């Protein structure tokens, strides 16, 4: 039983991170019907900017004296950096193709992914880069269950980000404009909503969330590597499809499910196959219910 609960907590932690990445896929798809294959690279870029900023602050000795402040600053800087990066990518690689076939933009996204990933490799090197390890040492032990402070931080941060995103999309005026743009771009410009701005905002938010996940994954596993965006990117994509692509609540749910399945699969079936489960789910969803869990029937949480 302890083992089950332990796995459950690990599953939520991982699933929350997948959910953060999956939101970027689903929101961009909702607004411009593009699978942004370069999205995983924003996650990787986040992991790197995070480690650079945190290492710098450690070097200054600030991390020991002001850990919370440092962490907040690195999240803010990293998310902002990746948001700008994504807005730039959209302007350069997708916007000029908006009137072309969807395949053109899709190929451009693939190209962008390769470009960004190689850019990261060339500027940061091919070897792992270690995160400062003095953050969040220690853990809570209840019976046979251990939860590290780091895990608690990740769970809280993920929760806060998901709640903020939900509030933004479903409770604010700009969120309403986002949903309107996803539903009918011509009509939304007839009520004076600028689709360009909404599209930029969507990319910025999606990349910001992925970047936050990038830092947390870096902290969780202790290091980052230039190609770290690939696997989590595809798994988060699977999560978005599982939830019903375009559907925000679906992406959150899909992320949690994929995280759970991966952790439980690794724990109870085989650790060797942990990366396979997400793909089995992806294929099964595409085969049996391509609209995903929240697709079609439960429509109201789509962007």
């Amino acid at each position, binding site marked *: 039983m302890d083992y089950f609960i332990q796995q459950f907590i690990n599953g939520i932690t991982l699933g929350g991170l997948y959910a953060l990445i999956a939101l970027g896929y689903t929101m961009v798809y909702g607004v411009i019907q593009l699978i942004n294959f370069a999205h995983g690279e924003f996650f990787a870029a986040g992991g790197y900017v995070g480690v650079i900023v945190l290492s710098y602050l450690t070097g200054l000795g600030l991390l020991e004296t002001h850990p919370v402040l440092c962490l907040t600053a690195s999240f803010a800087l990293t998310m902002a950096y990746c948001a700008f990066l994504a807005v730039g990518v959209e302007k350069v690689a997708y916007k000029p193709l908006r009137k072309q076939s969807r395949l053109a933009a899709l190929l451009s996204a693939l190209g962008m992914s390769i470009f960004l990933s190689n850019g990261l490799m060339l500027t940061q090197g091919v070897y792992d880069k270690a995160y400062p390890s003095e953050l969040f040492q220690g853990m809570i032990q209840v019976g046979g269950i251990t939860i590290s402070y780091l895990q608690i931080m990740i769970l809280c941060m993920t929760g806060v980000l998901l709640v903020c995103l939900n509030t933004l999309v479903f409770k604010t005026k700009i969120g*309403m404009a986002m949903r309107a743009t996803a539903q009918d771009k011509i009509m939304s410009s*007839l*009520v*004076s909503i600028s689709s360009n701005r909404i599209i930029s905002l969507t990319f910025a938010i999606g990349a910001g969330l992925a970047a936050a996940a990038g830092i947390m994954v870096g902290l969780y596993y202790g290091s980052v590597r230039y190609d770290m965006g690939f696997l989590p990117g595809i798994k988060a994509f699977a999560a978005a499809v599982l939830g019903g692509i375009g559907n925000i609540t679906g992406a959150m749910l899909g992320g949690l499910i994929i995280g759970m399945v991966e952790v439980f699969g690794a724990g109870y079936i085989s650790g060797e196959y942990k990366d396979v489960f997400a793909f089995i789910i992806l294929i099964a969803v595409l085969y049996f219910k391509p609209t995903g869990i929240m697709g079609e029937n439960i429509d*109201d949480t789509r962007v």
Partner: protein
Amino acid sequence: MEPILELKDVYSSYGSIKALKGISLKVFPGEIVAIIGANGAGKSTTLMATCGIVPIDKGDILYQGKSISGLMAEKLPIMGLCQVPEGRRIFPRLTVHENLELGAFYRKDRAGIEKDMERVYDLFPVLRDRTKQQGGTLSGGEQQMLAIARALMTRPKVLLMDEPSLGLAPLIVQRIFDIIHDVNESEGMTILLVEQNANLALQAAQRGYVLETGTVTMEDDADKLLHNEEIRKAYLGE
């Protein structure tokens, strides 16, 4: 008097399809002007080009004396040029209330928005009973009312309407035309009305234009068009 809206020899196309081949028309402040014409004549394209949605290849569009061709579509509602498009285009997964709020998207005057909200709910009481309902679940008539109400929330000076009577029961059509008449009378709102139902449109309007395959073939006072032999044969089913 200066026209508030003027199209000067406007050409537009969809790829190789030439939809507008030199449309010229004028709308004066406070007027109701009707555009009638058969399917595919280019009526909707004329409105979409005016609103900056369909780009124009040639010619110019003037609003309040200034060229607006080439402006981003989203700038025009702020200037008071607003459209109730063909097919209503309600945001299907937004509530009735949200649809109305979006009509006032650019506005910052909270109190004014509240007041206008009350006003459109008074104009269309059915909408008040459905504020939380999703737009897509409304009936056709209710959607048309919502589309008009949403446009009114923008506080237009010139309202373009594309076939507001399409597919609606006579009673609702009557109600909608009453309201068109009303906002024109009481607020002096200028209205450019596209209709297949030529009879209805020409009765409501002061002047009318007849469109055929992308060109204006006739323009006159509405009651003259209404009594014109050719028009009666071609568009009034006689």
